[in-house]
């Protein structure tokens, strides 16, 4: 399917790459279909682009890259909703929030996005733990490569 996006222009998204958020996410109840777009240079960072709202995209990071001990226990209700029976079929991403100061970027480890890679069902999961917060500073894991020619629009 061809989709118009604010950040990436027209993109072509194969049907099998569409992620289905059947319940939306908190704050964006209308979020239904998304796709992941790679960041052109930063490994582990991808855009979660809404396919229904051209302006809506989230930056995501694979949590184990910045928090090596990160581990989640999926609540039963979420495992059922995702039709997940095998942990090997799960992919986990965390949403990045950029504040005024880019060096104060944070990752939401409390409420990761969990994807069933077999069915492409996806949802945001609120973990039943007090180990993680919605804001974990990630700036110390980032290196400044402003001149590396990163351009998200090259795709």
């Amino acid at each position, binding site marked *: 399917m061809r989709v118009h996006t*604010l950040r990436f222009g027209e993109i072509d998204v194969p049907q099998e790459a569409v992620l289905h958020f059947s319940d939306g996410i908190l704050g*964006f109840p209308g979020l239904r279909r998304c796709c992941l777009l790679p960041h052109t240079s930063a*490994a582990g960072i991808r855009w979660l682009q809404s396919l229904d709202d051209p302006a809506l995209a989230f930056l995501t990071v694979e949590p184990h890259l910045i928090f*090596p001990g990160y*581990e989640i226990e999926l609540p*039963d209700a*979420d495992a059922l909703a995702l039709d997940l029976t095998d942990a090997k079929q799960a992919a986990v991403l965390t949403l990045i929030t950029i504040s005024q100061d880019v060096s104060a970027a944070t990752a939401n480890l409390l409420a990761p996005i969990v994807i069933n890679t077999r069915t492409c069902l996806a949802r945001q999961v609120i973990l039943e733990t007090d180990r993680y917060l919605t804001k974990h500073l990630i700036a110390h894991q980032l290196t*400044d*490569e402003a001149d590396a020619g990163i351009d998200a629009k090259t795709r």
Partner: protein
Amino acid sequence: MLVLTRKPGERLFIGDDIEITVVSVRGDQVRLGVTAPRSVAICRSELLEQVRQENLAAGRFAAARQATFARAASLSPPPAAQKTPARRARAG
């Protein structure tokens, strides 16, 4: 809203299969036990609001900052992360 008075140890049912027990009352804190089917998500309301606010901050209203961040930053995984296999989510 239906308001009920219960004592510690007493229970109430919501429908056939959701059972709430007042475990204890101490000062201004009430401990509740919830027995519910696996398909029922149980979450403290303040957490829902916290996640909602964080999502809003991460999404639509941050477009300009996202672009700045994307241009300026790249990830450098800590050495340990490259040797240790990524841990996986435990499902079910």
